């Protein structure tokens, strides 16, 4: 299968800190690729560069065959690259349904329509309701987003990413702060999504990572120290030393 995402020799520094160090990463269409690594390894920085929020110092990013290194955030999103945020980033003062409908609207051409009531347009509202139903938030549609719990915010994040009909999802710790039950629900949801989408998953929850990932890349200090199938990563001595050792108990 052709690679949907190709990252060549990406590098990013913040002053003296090397957050991304000559990073190479290829993700074929349809793969769920997990990126793991200790705190501060540069996972969020990587996602920020892929989504266009940060500009790399050097290196190139190709998505769906075109070089997007210099493309702004909104253009990448228009190409089908959607991102969810590690720290929940929603439209808190808008309704839950409005949040998702905006994501639909983003993909429905330009928004220079000044007259018709957008809250009554089925082309926007119906797909938004469908996305909410998929993450199990239908009953909360009309509440302001600020009224939802943390776990529901994570679900809403996912609904928004889905509603933009992306080809690839960049998920930054979708399980962060979720209880065991909510995490389990999220894993089920991601397993469904992985059938239709290419996913880059950054996650600290190793149980979830090993349950979902087709391949795993391990980052330490911005460098790839290992990349491969879950079994290989699990048995990689360097990875154990650097990272997995402390969490052995979780998935032994």
């Amino acid at each position, binding site marked *: 299968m052709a690679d949907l995402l190709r990252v060549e020799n990406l590098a990013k520094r913040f002053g003296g800190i090397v957050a991304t160090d000559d990073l190479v990463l290829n993700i074929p269409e349809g793969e769920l690729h997990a990126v793991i690594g200790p705190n501060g390894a540069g996972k969020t920085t990587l996602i920020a560069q892929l*989504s266009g*929020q940060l500009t790399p110092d050097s290196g190139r990013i190709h998505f769906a065959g075109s070089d997007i290194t210099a493309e*702004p*955030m*909104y253009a990448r*999103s*228009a190409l089908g690259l*959607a*991102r969810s*945020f590690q720290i929940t*980033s*929603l*439209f*808190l*003062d*808008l*309704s839950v349904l*409005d949040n998702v*409908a*905006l*994501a639909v*609207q*983003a*993909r429905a051409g330009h*928004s*220079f*329509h*000044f*007259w*018709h*009531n*957008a*809250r009554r*347009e089925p082309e*926007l509202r119906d797909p938004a309701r469908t996305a909410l139903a998929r993450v199990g938030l239908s009953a909360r549609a009309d509440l*302001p987003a600020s009224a939802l719990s943390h776990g529901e915010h994570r679900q809403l994040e996912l609904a*928004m990413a889905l509603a*933009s009909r992306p080809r690839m999802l960049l998920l930054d710790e979708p399980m962060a702060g979720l209880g065991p039950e909510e995490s389990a629900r999220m894993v089920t949801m991601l397993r469904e999504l992985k059938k239709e989408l290419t996913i880059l998953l950054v996650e600290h929850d190793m149980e979830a990572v090993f349950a979902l990932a087709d391949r795993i890349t391990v980052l330490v200090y911005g460098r790839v120290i290992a990349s491969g199938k879950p079994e290989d990563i699990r048995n990689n001595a360097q990875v154990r030393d650097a990272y997995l050792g402390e969490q052995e108990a979780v998935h032994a």
Partner: protein
Amino acid sequence: MSGWLSVRAIAIVALLLALVLLPVHVELGGSRFLLTLFTRIIILALAAVSLNLILGYGGMMSFGHAAYLGIGGYAVGILAHEGVFTGFIQWPVALAASALFALVIGALSLRTRGVYFIMITLAFAQMAYYVVAGLARYGGDDGLTIYKRSQFIAPIDLSNKVQFYYICLALLFGSMYLVRRIVNSRFGLAIQGARSNDTRMRAIGFPTYRYKLVCFVIAGTLCGLSGALIANHTDFVSPAMMYWTRSGDLIIMVVLGGMGSTFGPLVGAVALLVLEEVLSSITEYWQIILGPLLLLVVLFARGGIDGLLGKVRHG
């Protein structure tokens, strides 16, 4: 709280009725002064409605909105001074000049955020103020008297006070309707999304800068209309109408009445200007009373007066 019989609905309908019937009251022997005062209130309410579009819905804290009052006003004043009296030229020029000014200021200021945005809009408005004050041919600091109001076709006569009042009121209602349509449209939701979380908007594929810029231009244009009306109302334009404290007044009207509400700016304009009128007739230190009053509203009624009346915010 919602529904037709809420306190808020009754209060708003009463206010609208009072505005519509005010000239009748004056004709029946009421004070002429009321008509003058309320014409002014209505015109400034229109300016506040335009500011509410960018401030209340768009979250753009422009501190230079009065510049458009001056630009719209001076477009009418300068053209009249040069012998062009027809409103069919004066008014489009007033709107176009305001739009252009908004385009330039917006293009520069919308690249910045927070305090910088406030300072840049303020700086540009003050620049416009000094430019106008330097126009010796058009009265400079002293301002410019307008000897003839904008001319339109036959039945329309702006020097008829009652007619002028109703024209202003119709334009106000029209603008409120327009803004309401805009904020509920796709464009309006994009603007509100950008207010709520600009980064996220860009992440899901909205070039927010363009939307905000267009919104900024619409608001400036609408405020330019208010400027053209003021010029006709006072038969006089001066740099003072674009001084930064006037921009502050407009912000107060919006915040006092209720940001991001259809009727908020109107309620705020009426409240502020009537209060100012009443208090200043009681004591010359009226601002000492007005200040704390405003503080109370800002501190305890985040949604302004309209919020106190029970407006349910959903956007």
